[in-house]
């Protein structure tokens, strides 16, 4: 019985610099917030943006390094550093910067205290980054919880609005269930494969032959895993939290959930199905097929009958999640090279779109965050033509109009589906997207074709502060740029196909 020595894994510090930057920044943010008082709130936003941009720059360098040195797995095979990870990290850091900017004005308008919101954003982004990079189920779970817990708090961060409290609590309870499912799934998969390492699971499953009928535990594990992640990405029938939470949460937080939250959960799902479960594709692919179809159809149909814009966009995000599921379904076909890049590209494009859209919604809902009914948009085209024009670009992109990024995104997943002869799913999704187009048209009608309200109903004028204006303009620019010149994004997402295993 000698003294046991613990061996520490060697750590590739350089590769996790973005995580360290954000972690350090969050600590400093909290310490400063605790020790000092009454800082101008915008400073925290600027600090967060600077952190995110710093992380972004490091990620660009890391992308370049991976071009040179190749992908690798670090820290005891727990973290993958590959183009896939970097693609997601760049997306998350970009989203963090944009959302922080659009939050600055929101907090001032709503007279809410600043620092902790930004700390929570950074914390959530950290969790998301860990999730997208994890090559181990346990690390994945850690990232998931870090992201989720920060999001629960963020959802209820508007302390004077009952809806915000309600949405936080709902999200927390349902999210807790989902986490439990997910964890149980990990346990069952560990039970049948003997490892929690994602590439390890992939190796075991592709080499070991399960006797028919003897793999019930594994299948149950896979099912629970998919349920847990499907809850996070909000696909039907695990979507019930989405409309309430999206509607109740402060609008910038909603945009954060819809961008970073979706990015992380989808990236995790992608990595799990592409690395751990490819040899069981025949088992999970039909499930994903059903989830994808249900999501595009139910999401689109329910979106159209809403009267609240945030709720509409919540359902439309479910429909978009369904489109991304089409890409994941494609991965389930052997030899597929289109599904993963298409889904990643969709995620990147949708994240920017949804941040732009919700920033406009946030401006239009005005003080109190209550005016998110479709009537608030009436006459926006006359009152704020530039803002209405940007919103039109976002909505047309979400409807999948050519020359916008949304078309490229849809085209990518439809191409992936067609490559694998999944024509049914492609046609159903496209027809469903026509139904969803009706919803975007309704908002556009309200903005451009309905007159302003008059008399008692007159609402306060919409102010467009510089920060929010910057976010809207930047997102609109990205949307049109990718629509006209998508080559670089397609190439980048295709580079992400080589996962570190």
């Amino acid at each position: 019985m000698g003294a046991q020595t613990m061996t520490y894994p060697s750590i590739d510090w350089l590769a996790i610099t973005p995580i360290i930057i954000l972690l350090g920044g969050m600590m400093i943010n909290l310490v400063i917030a605790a020790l000092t008082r009454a800082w101008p709130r915008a400073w925290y936003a600027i600090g967060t943006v600077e952190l995110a941009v710093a992380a972004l720059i490091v990620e660009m360098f890391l992308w370049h390094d991976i071009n040179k040195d190749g992908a690798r797995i670090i820290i005891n095979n727990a973290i993958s550093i590959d183009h896939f990870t970097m693609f997601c990290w760049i997306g998350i850091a970009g989203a963090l910067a944009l959302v922080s900017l659009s939050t600055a004005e929101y907090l001032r308008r709503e007279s809410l205290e600043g620092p902790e919101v930004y700390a929570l954003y950074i914390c959530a982004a950290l969790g998301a980054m860990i999730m997208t990079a994890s090559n181990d189920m346990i690390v994945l779970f850690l990232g998931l919880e870090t992201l989720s817990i920060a999001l629960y708090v963020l959802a209820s961060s508007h302390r004077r609005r009952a809806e915000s409290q309600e949405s936080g609590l709902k999200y927390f309870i349902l999210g807790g269930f989902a986490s439990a499912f997910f964890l149980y799934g990990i346990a069952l998969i560990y039970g049948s494969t003997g490892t929690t390492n994602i590439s390890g699971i992939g190796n075991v499953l592709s080499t070991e032959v399960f006797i028919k009928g003897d793999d019930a535990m594994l299948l149950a594990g896979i099912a629970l895993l998919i349920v847990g992640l499907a809850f996070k990405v909000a696909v039907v029938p695990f979507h019930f939290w989405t409309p309430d939470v999206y509607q109740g949460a402060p609008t910038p937080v909603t945009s954060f959930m819809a961008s970073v939250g979706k990015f992380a959960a989808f990236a995790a799902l992608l990595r799990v199905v592409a690395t751990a479960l490819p040899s069981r594709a025949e088992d999970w692919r039909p499930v994903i097929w059903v989830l994808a179809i249900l999501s595009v159809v139910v999401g689109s149909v329910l979106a159209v009958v809403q009267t609240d814009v945030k709720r509409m966009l919540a359902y439309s995000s479910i429909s978009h999640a369904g489109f991304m599921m089409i890409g994941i379904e494609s991965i389930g076909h052997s030899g597929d090279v289109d599904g993963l890049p298409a889904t990643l590209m969709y995620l990147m494009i949708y994240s920017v779109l949804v941040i732009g859209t919700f920033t406009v919604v946030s401006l239009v809902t005005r003080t109190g965050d209550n005016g998110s009914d479709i009537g608030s948009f009436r006459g926006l085209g006359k009152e704020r033509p530039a803002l209405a024009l940007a919103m039109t670009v976002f909505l047309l992109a979400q409807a999948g109009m050519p020359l916008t990024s949304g078309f490229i995104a849809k085209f990518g997943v439809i191409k992936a589906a067609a490559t694998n002869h999944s024509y049914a799913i492609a046609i159903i999704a496209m027809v469903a997207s026509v139904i969803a187009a009706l919803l975007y048209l309704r908002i556009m009608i309200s903005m451009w074709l309905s007159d302003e309200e008059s008399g008692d109903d007159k609402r306060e004028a919409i102010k467009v502060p510089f920060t929010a204006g910057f976010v809207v303009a930047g997102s609109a620019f990205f949307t049109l740029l990718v629509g006209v010149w998508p080559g670089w994004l397609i190439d980048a997402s295709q580079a992400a196909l080589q996962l570190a295993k």
Partner: protein
Amino acid sequence: MSLLASEMHGSLPFPILTALILIPAAGSILTLISSNLRPEITKLIALLTSVFTGALGLWMLASFKTGEASYQFTSQHQWISSWHIGWHVGVDGISLFLVVLTGFLFPLVIVGCDPHHDEKRYLAWILLLEAGVMGSFLSLDLFLFFLFFEIVLVPMYFLIGGWGYDQRIYAATKFFLYTMVGSAFMLVGIVTTALLAKKDLGHISFDLVEIAESANFAASTGRWLFFAFAIAFAVKVPLFPLHTWLPDAHTQAPTGGSVILAGVLLKLGTYGLLRFGVYLFPEAALWSRQIFLTLAVIGIIWGAVAATMQKDLKRLVAYSSVAHLGFIVLGTFAFTAEAMGGGVMQMINHGVSTGALFLLVGMIYERRHTRLISELKGLQKVAPIFAAAFMVVMLSSIGVPGLNGFVGEFLVLIGSFATARWWVVVAATGVILAALYLLWAYQRVFHGEPDEANSTFRELRLREGLVLLPFIGLIIFCGVYPKPMLDRIEPSVKAILVRVEEKTGYVAPEPVVLTTEGEEG
């Protein structure tokens, strides 16, 4: 696909087709950013842009090599190289006159139709629409074509929704969604076509010329793909029973919107059927011809009967469009050179005469603020020149010999007789019905003694007359001397027919008449 960009402008020193698309688009942006304080400058920019585009179109027409079937003035560049999507534009005899017509209609619409409010946005949308329409007619890349085909929806949606009449939002939404459903199928069809072409080409390709030359689709696959394309075009044409969006859209659209919708937008459907249906999937088109012939003939009769019963003058013209477009589809699916050439001819003729009819109906509405036939009476007495102009345009729409409408319809009917006899027999009654509903409408609106409201009906003004003059000139010119047009259309149409014969073993019947002599009545 080679990475080489190629430019073959023929005798022209610059890529004229790219210019035809980009100039209106640039004009649209210019209009949008022009000063709010000087509306006349905004209008001038828009007008100059559209006139310049039209002039470019005429220049292209003048330099077009007659008697060649292949694409001219092509320019090809890589665009999205990872998906093998290129900027590939070109023009042949089929698209030539549609492009010229587009360049001809837009300036006249800008001069002739007053939007009444928000003129700047209206003009920007009109010019963007022109860019989209030009792009659709000129694209030789499936992706590029889809892009323009879809983008056209947006300006048209806003034109109907923003400047239309009472039910405009309903009509605009219906127009948008109907077309989008069709496009949904076409997008899947396009992607699948490009992916299946990989087998024969060695790489995925969206290039129309490449696919048509090298790719061979199995009969059953080709049929599926053909129908995916055909649904989108059938909605756009519109073919019975997918036509219900058209009367609403036409009736509610502002005059300018109606003119463009009837003049060129509907042709996207018939053009698409010919270019991306028959040309790309000859076997499937031949196999399904009876379906299309039947739907076309039903459309002719249905449109005519429905037009007869309309109370609203604009709706009447809209239903007459359904009937006229039926003739084009009939000609396309008759698979003879005359009928197909006549169909292309009819596309232009319908654009001119129905465009002019919508302008005239718009002028009536401007004066009387009603389009109800029952409210109008005796206009011939108070506005004889207006009535005369209306008469000429209406007779052209009916298809009276000597005017342009006759040439197309006659060629379609006589050309189809050999291959689709019984359909022609039924369709010919549509010609008579056209005379019935248009003459009856003319009688009710223009004959008789004007009542009090109609006695102050203003005579045609100079500006209105100048806008109508080119239309009437074309109506008479094309009716009397269609040879220059037919000479340019025929080689391309015959090339399609030869392709059908090669791919399917179908033998087109010998021409029944010498096409350039038979109709100069």
